[in-house]
């Protein structure tokens, strides 16, 4: 019984994350701030080239 509750909680939270992630991605940025990004000059800590915040448009 408790295993089922645990699985339901995880599924619900994952679903919540997916929904919020998609809404955030699809929501247009405020006017004039469409290209606000972390510049490579200011963010060199982890050197993660696949980071979406450092990618060029």
């Amino acid at each position, binding site marked *: 019984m*408790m295993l089922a*509750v*645990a699985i339901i*909680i*995880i599924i619900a*939270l*994952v679903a*919540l*994350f997916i929904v*919020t*992630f998609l*809404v*955030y991605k699809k*929501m247009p*940025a*405020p*006017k004039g*701030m469409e290209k*606000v*990004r*972390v510049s490579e*000059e*200011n*963010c*060199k*800590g*982890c050197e993660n080239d696949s980071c*979406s*915040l450092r990618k060029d448009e």
Partner: protein
Amino acid sequence: MPFIDTFLVPFALAIISSMLIDNVVLSRFYGICPFLGVSKKPQSALGMGVAVVFVIVLASAICWPIYQLLALPEVNLPYMDTVVYILVIASLVQLVGIFIKKYSPSLYKSLGIYLPLITTNCAVLGVVQSNTDQGLNFAMSMANAVGTSVGFLFVIFVFSCIRVRLESSDTPKAFKGVAIALVTAAIMALAFIGLTGMAG
């Protein structure tokens, strides 16, 4: 004054302790990635620090009652705390991002780009986890969250100011960039050890 002795003094001590003595970056070594990555300019460091304060306080306020629910004898799922916290923090960051994007363009301009980075900041998870591991009540959890996050903001801002000065200093070629930054962080950590025992 019993209110001062039983509530205000422990509350203030908890904030000072988690901010300076048990600093999240220099003593517990959480949040090193943004500490090194977003500390090249004081303005970026300040933006990141404020965003971390915002998320840590909010995440602690939300995760504390969730843990109390998981730990209830009828539910009895306290072992699920970490996975629940990760998902709650990730969703919370997205929700805050949506809210800021929609209602506060000025806040989005200053914090928006740092919000997704905070999802992977282990300092947030570390604070929330330590709140429940230590069995703190809600008020002390909030004190721990405020102190820890302000400690992060303080340290990242000071570190960024030092890095700006290091840029114009005569550093040996082998030490330029991240190497001298790590040496600086180590010296800062040693300096913070000097505060041990300050709050009793």
